[in-house]
């Protein structure tokens, strides 16, 4: 919980920011049909069902209130200020949320901490399903955006953009990609022809990008035999869509799989030995149609398990609930994230490789502040590195100071 002085300090900085910059926010399409929501610093509850007829009204609201978080609806409504059931849903943008929280990253989330709400037991990394001490399932979590997490999230965003443009046929102008201001990326599709699609249709798109319900037999795999079925052919690596993805997923998996990996799929010793000893042959086989026939000891069920793993590795890790929810409130681009003091920023899809999520979203570029840091790992913001800090007073550039204050890792010195 942030102390009052710290809170007041952050809010005064947010306020300064909005007084200067609120006009530069891009108004969403059909602003009068959108619902708005805000979380204010003091009240800490979501104020929703707000509507603005004109962009100017929204701007002056921001300047007056300087909220911690600013949201608006993916949905378009006849009367956005009404109660949910009377709003009159007209349509919604297709929206994807990719968050490092949902991705198993190479850093192992070693920078994150969790505390069991039941018994207070604490640990590092991703919170377990159940507390090892008291079996409670809810935790207080402190998460941190590290370079590895951010890079993993970006990779997922790239995979998603690929599917949206190559397969769904959306043009780069219709697809808006943004950094969330914390640990993720958002992708928003404002294409008018998709606007009227209902939740079931959004669900089908979710299943498409995550590979849920994918049946190999529709993707270039061939099977022979009735009683003892076996795969006789499969997709090639340069095939389009899921076919190519599945083939590449299988190649990558088989090329790097350890005995343990194969065991975890439920393969028996004979199958494992065959895969391990034929690695060279498998790699070469991709030039001539794939490894389906050269691995004699792998039966139908075992191949199916390998294919399933390949699909998982190629699936895009999105938050499935966000995309299927056609009434969702989402963070507005060019507004500040109250948990970091960074901006949510949008950029052209082509620029995603060069986008620097620890530099480009920096909002507070002027001045310094001296703060007392309780604990923070080493981190980068802009071109500078800071920390690690432990129970010490430090003078930092404003963006870094605000970042630690917003994260609850520091407080202002009074």
């Amino acid at each position, binding site marked *: 919980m942030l102390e009052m002085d710290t809170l007041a300090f952050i809010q005064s900085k947010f306020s300064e920011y909005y007084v200067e910059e609120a006009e530069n926010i891009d108004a969403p399409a059909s602003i009068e049909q959108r619902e708005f929501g805000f979380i204010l610093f003091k009240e800490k509850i979501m104020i929703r069902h707000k509507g603005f007829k004109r962009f100017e009204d929204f701007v002056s609201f921001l300047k007056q209130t300087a909220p911690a978080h600013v949201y608006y609806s993916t949905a378009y409504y006849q009367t956005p200020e009404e109660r949910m059931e009377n709003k009159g849903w007209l349509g919604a943008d297709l929206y994807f949320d990719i968050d490092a929280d949902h991705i198993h990253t190479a850093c192992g989330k070693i920078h994150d901490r969790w505390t069991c709400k039941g018994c207070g037991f604490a640990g590092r990394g991703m919170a377990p399903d159940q507390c090892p001490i008291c079996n409670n399932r809810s935790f207080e979590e402190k998460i941190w955006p590290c370079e590895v997490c951010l890079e993993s999230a970006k990779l997922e965003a790239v995979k998603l953009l690929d599917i949206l443009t190559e397969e769904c046929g959306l043009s780069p102008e219709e697809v808006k990609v943004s950094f969330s201001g914390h640990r993720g990326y958002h992708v928003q599709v404002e294409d008018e022809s998709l606007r009227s699609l209902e939740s079931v249709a959004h669900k089908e798109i979710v299943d498409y990008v995550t590979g849920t319900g994918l049946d190999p037999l529709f993707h270039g795999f061939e099977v022979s035999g009735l009683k003892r079925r076996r795969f006789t052919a499969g997709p090639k690596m340069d095939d389009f869509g899921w076919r190519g993805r599945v083939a590449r997923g299988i190649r990558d998996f088989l090329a790097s799989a350890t005995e343990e990996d194969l065991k975890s799929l439920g393969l028996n010793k004979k199958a494992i030995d065959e895969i391990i000893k034929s690695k060279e042959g498998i790699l070469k086989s991709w030039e001539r149609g794939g490894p389906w026939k050269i691995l004699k000891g792998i039966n139908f069920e075992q191949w199916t398990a390998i294919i399933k793993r390949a699909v998982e590795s190629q699936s895009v890790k999105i938050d499935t609930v966000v995309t*299927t929810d056609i009434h969702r409130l989402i963070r507005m681009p060019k507004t500040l994230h109250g948990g970091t003091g960074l901006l949510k920023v949008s950029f052209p899809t082509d620029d995603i490789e060069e986008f620097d999520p620890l530099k480009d979203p920096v909002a507070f570029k002027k001045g310094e502040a001296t703060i007392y840091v309780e604990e923070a790992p080493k981190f980068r913001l802009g071109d500078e590195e800071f920390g690690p800090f432990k129970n010490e007073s430090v003078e930092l550039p404003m963006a870094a100071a605000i970042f630690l204050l917003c994260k609850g890792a520091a407080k202002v010195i009074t």
Partner: protein
Amino acid sequence: MALTRSDLAKYPFTLDAAEFVKLLDLRIENLESDDYKPIVERAEERLRKALSDDWTKAEYSQLLEDVEIPDVEIPSFPLAVMMAAASGNEYIKRRYALFEAKRAYEIIRMEEKLEKILEIARAFDWKVRIVTEKVGGRKFDFALSLRDFLRNTGRFHEKEWKLVNKILLKGEVYLTKHEVSRLLQEEIQRRIERRLNPEFRPSLPESILERVERLKQEYSGKAEKAQLQRYPDSVVNEAFPPCISQMYGAAKSGSHLSHIERFALTSFLLNIGMKPEDVINLFRSSADFNERMTRYQVEHISGERGSRTRYVPPTCETLKTHGVCPVAEGFCGRFRHPLIYYRKKTGRLKSESTSS
């Protein structure tokens, strides 16, 4: 390729057919005259066929012969729609829309020329084109826009209809003639259902309304039977599907449930007849239990608050999308919904206990 008059008789739901009817200059108030009798008879016959059980292939080909007299056949359709709407009976309306759509499907898939099907699809503003080249080693007939595909597959559950199992390239889904005919059936059914909403009753002459009333009475038994199936009076825990069983156990032991799990469990229990009070009590052992909040949510889902509609739990497919379904494909048999599983299972448990 334009639609001919006999095409319009085959596809009386198209805008071209509506134009044709307009040109005939029929007046509702004259419907009782002898000149119009064949049209009225034919409209009633459409409704009777829709309500009968006999939807066989022979019936459909019979319908094809009927199209020989377009002047009767075409206007009989809008009249039948008005009569179905005037019945005010949900069963008759639903059944009629389904029948006309199925009939159209059977006729469309027999069309030899792809151009003809293209014409019908475009009458519904579909973005669709004929494809001749092979894609991924397979021959297809049409490439349909992603939007039109998704708009018309919402009611399908088979894996071959899932988008993820289709070829999707540059915003188009590749389909066979047979598949496009099936999707058109969905489109037609929705179009007819939309037209059944307005209340035509006041405008229809007395003798037509009498025909509607007769139909209603004749088929009242069937309509009632189709009304909602009932669940046992008390909750039968042994009949819970695996997902609900797991969530129920977790809630009871105070374990954490995700938002969607809470929603699925709560709406399931309310739908099978558990009292809101008992559902609230179920969540009491949770570490972060907040009575006010829980009560608000449970009462909202039960329809006692807010929109006044009782929420239904998500389908099996939705639970799978969100990674909440705990079992492998096929474990629950053909059931597509936790409530259907429960209803069948309670039925089976009951018959087992009475027969032993």
